């Protein structure tokens, strides 16, 4: 089956799924200028046709990416969300109305198609994966243990976050879905965390925005108002996804440690030496990132809030608390993301994603919880904490870059000495690449766009 054909089929089915949903939500663009304008499904047909065309581009982009159901899935979601910016925000208003709709109000109006495009991307990705044979593991040669591991990971994630935020069924199904996408999780706990977090976002879009309102009889909650109301659940889903991703990885490693005799990696010298070195470098990088972050916080005057974490009120304590937290997060970054970045671009990507993760975990969740209040998960709170998002993104970028530079100075594993080493290095980079760039772009796009779009007051 040729690349184009696969892409067209995937885009077609994706367009159908998203088009039907958008039709139900009444959010398909007007087609007043088309000949069959009065036929109620003309918009759907247009959408499906457009989806097929976009699917061709998707298949072309995917032609040189690594195989794997999870990979194609995440690339699809990113592809879909990118086309939301190009389509409903730019090209469609340009051709239909004559101007570009990039302001907050227009973005809010176009929000349903954002979810629709996400669904399109996800479905197209899954279909393309099936057509490419990425689900070849079924029936599985290595048993169905990974499904059990996925469910366990989902359960643990739900337990950590709290059942009132993420339902038990959703948790189990979510974990199951993760294991279906990644029967063999890719090495690297840090990327697993980010991957899980993005997966959690997608589960939120499906569960909180789609399935739950449908089952409650309210119709799809894809509008901006619906998303605003459902925003309270979003951090919970993000954290659930991150936890499930990490635990799934650990369970897989544990299973391999106890029951199989294949070593995790021959490159490792053992967790003793590598881990300590990574910790040290991470702590050092955390210092640099912490300096950036403290600069931001000083600019915002939020040092007292940091001091308030341990019950003090002086600015110096606040700065010290900031630095300690920056150190700890930096050290954890070293452990989670060692040998995962091979140039500044990848370092930026992981660092920024990790910074966003800590914005969700830190100011939104842990800071109020540690002070005895419920977590601040409303849109208004997220909007108020937007400056600290900028700060944490800056911190993450600094962290990633400095850690990469430290690795480059002492052990640039991506510069091979011999041809044999070159083969090893290219294998490792190949493994790293996967859907990582898609994850980075998606995390930053969502991190910045969602709070802004959803915080704006609807006129």
């Amino acid at each position, binding site marked *: 089956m040729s690349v184009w054909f696969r892409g067209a089929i995937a885009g077609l089915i994706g367009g159908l799924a998203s088009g039907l949903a958008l039709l139900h939500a009444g959010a398909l663009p007007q087609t007043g200028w088309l000949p069959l304008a009065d036929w109620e499904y003309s918009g759907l047909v247009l959408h499906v046709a457009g989806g097929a065309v976009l699917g061709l581009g998707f298949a072309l982009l995917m032609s040189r990416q690594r195989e794997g159901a999870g990979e194609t899935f995440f690339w699809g979601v990113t592809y879909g969300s*990118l086309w939301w910016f190009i389509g409903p925000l730019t090209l469609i208003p340009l051709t239909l109305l004559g101007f*570009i709709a*990039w302001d907050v109000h227009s973005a809010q109006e176009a929000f349903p198609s954002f979810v629709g495009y996400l669904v399109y991307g996800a479905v197209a990705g899954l279909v393309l994966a099936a057509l490419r044979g990425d689900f070849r593991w079924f029936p599985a040669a290595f048993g169905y243990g990974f499904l059990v591991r996925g469910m366990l990971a989902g359960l643990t994630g739900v337990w950590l976050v709290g059942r009132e935020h993420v339902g038990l069924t959703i948790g189990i199904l979510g974990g199951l879905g993760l294991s279906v996408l990644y029967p063999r999780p890719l090495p690297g706990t840090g990327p697993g965390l980010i991957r899980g977090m993005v997966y959690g976002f997608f589960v939120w879009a499906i569960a909180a925005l789609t399935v739950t309102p449908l089952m409650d009889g309210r119709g799809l909650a894809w509008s901006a108002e619906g998303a605003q109301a459902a925003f309270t659940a979003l951090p919970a889903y993000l954290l659930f996804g991150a936890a499930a991703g990490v635990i799934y990885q650990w369970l897989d490693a544990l299973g391999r440690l106890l029951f199989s005799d294949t070593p995790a990696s021959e490159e490792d010298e053992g967790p003793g030496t590598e881990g300590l070195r990574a910790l040290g470098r991470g702590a050092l990088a955390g210092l640099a990132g912490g300096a950036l972050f403290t600069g931001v916080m000083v600019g915002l005057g939020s040092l007292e809030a940091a001091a308030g974490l341990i019950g003090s009120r002086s600015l110096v304590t606040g700065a010290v608390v900031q630095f300690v937290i920056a150190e700890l997060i930096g050290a954890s970054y070293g452990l989670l993301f060692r040998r995962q970045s091979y140039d500044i671009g990848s370092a930026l990507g992981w660092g920024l994603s990790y910074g966003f993760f800590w914005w969700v975990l830190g100011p939104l969740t842990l800071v109020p919880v540690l002070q005895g209040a419920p977590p601040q998960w409303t849109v208004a709170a997220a909007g108020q904490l*937007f400056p600290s998002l900028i700060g944490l993104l800056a911190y993450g970028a600094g962290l990633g870059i400095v850690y990469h530079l430290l690795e480059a100075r002492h052990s640039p594993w991506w510069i091979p000495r011999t041809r044999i080493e070159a083969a090893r290095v290219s294998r490792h*980079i190949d493994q790293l690449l996967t859907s990582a760039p898609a994850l980075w772009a998606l995390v*930053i796009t969502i991190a910045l766009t969602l709070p*802004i779009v959803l915080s704006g007051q609807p006129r």
Partner: protein
Amino acid sequence: MNGALKRDVVAGALAGLVAGTISGWAILAQGLTATAASFIGVAPSGGGFAVHLAVSAFIGGSFGAVFRYSPYGSAASLTGGILYGLLWWIIGSLTLIPLVQGRPPAWSIDAAGAALPNLVAQLLYGAITGGLFSVLVSQYLRRTPAPAAVPHDREPLTRVVILGGGFGGISAAQRLDQIYARDRSVETTLISHSNYLLFTPMLAEVAASGLEAQHISAPVRAALARVRFLKADVETIDPAAQVVRLRASAGSAAETVPYDHLILALGSVPNFYGLPGLEAHSFTLKTLADATALRNHVIGMLEAADGEPDPAQRRAQLTFVVAGGGFAGTEMVAELSDLVRGILRYYPNIGRDEPRFILVHSGERILPEISPQLADYALSKLTARGIEFLLKTRVAGATAETVSFTDGGGIPTRTLVWTAGNQPHPLLGPLPCEKNRVGAVIDAPSLQVKGLANVWAVGDCAEIPDAYTDRPCPPTAQHALRQGTAVADNVSVVLRGAAPVPFKFRTVGVLVALGRRTAVAEIRGWKFSGFLAWFIWRTVYLARLPGFEKKLRVALDWTLDLFFPRDIVLMAPSAAPTLSQTIGAPVPAPTPSPVGEPVGDQP
């Protein structure tokens, strides 16, 4: 900037220009509010647009430099562009531009909301830049194929060869490893006859069973990340042809290794001054094998004496003579005394005062390298423990049963440890350069060998002028370590075309271990003695062990050793019986030890 980087920057700038045109037109020409334009920081007019294009080209070029081209697919490049574009939205629209215009940074949600059009513009700009960049570079490469960057096909431009895997050689190799970690044009090779770095100052304790062999040895390959390592025996050094000839092992073929710069760190070998019987019948302390052999021999002597009826034989077996009153000799005799007295309780037939420990020294006082007070203190401490000192006495020769002195006297002994003479490695002999009285090559202050081009020397095999005293640098480990680092720095400086720097190092201090967990130390004028000095001694060497894992293991072992006694396992190589031997048939004796007596009983 190398070619690939230039290509990436140019392609990125071009892509950024195109993307900037599109996004700039969208923002400025499509009737969006003035607020959006203000977030670009320019007025929506011709000049402003030109500035915007320039900035777009700059951001695109930096994207090319940061993300670099990789043939893994344009999808990664596209999403990388989105990431980068959004990052510049934060840096530019939200932070720098408001600051430049005198407003506070636009980090609040409302201000960010006002800048949402710029976000979308930057996102699309980034996507277009990323995608276009990948297309441009791949098209360029298809037209002008770049030379394949396969590492091993490229000949390195410069070869640095280090001979010797001791303190000097390894520290030079580690420094060169660091300097040239990412520079493939210089290839460093370390050649040594053993694949581990040995802490020779602590050999005495291994010989006395106070330390295990793996505590004081560290594998070379684990300490060096990029430097090539060759375990081989060097046969000749040819400075005229700038090659080194070596052989991997006794039976293998000879190899030739060319060099552009040669660092000699060959160290020293024992010097027997041609005295009869010394080489055959004495123990030296240069390698782990030496230390283990001495240890086994001493324990073997105790085992033999335990059952020996003849008093003359017993006396010879229980007399231990060390020749040479420098650091090595003094430490050795103290450690031997500790070892024997410590395990004497396992040998009920040997009396407490039967073993004798004698230090023979040709000078007036022992430990001439440290101050007289500390030397006297050491002498008094050791004498109080029952060690005998024969000062102003020279050894004339040795046999399997005795040691004889120049004044006619002699001592019946089965154990003679020779630490009284060291000479530089014999490989230096044929070198056509100036050498000093003992045969060491003479160095300029920059550590270059006088008279040879591109040859450097550090450590015991060289005479290096001390910047602070009139005498040459003493042959100690701390000097060899600093010389190794300095010579590596100087070699890299010379390769860059600048002038090398003279070597300057003020001795930090001297430490002598005196057994029983005591030592004397003189550190920058401060004098220590006793357990504190011994603790400092151990800590200094622990800090010098390469690798955190090794440090941790050795620290744990040494802490345990504080509570538990020494090991008396006799690990002598004895022939294991084979099937070809019948019960009662004589077993072939093992290789005899230097004093000519088989160690241990045979079955």
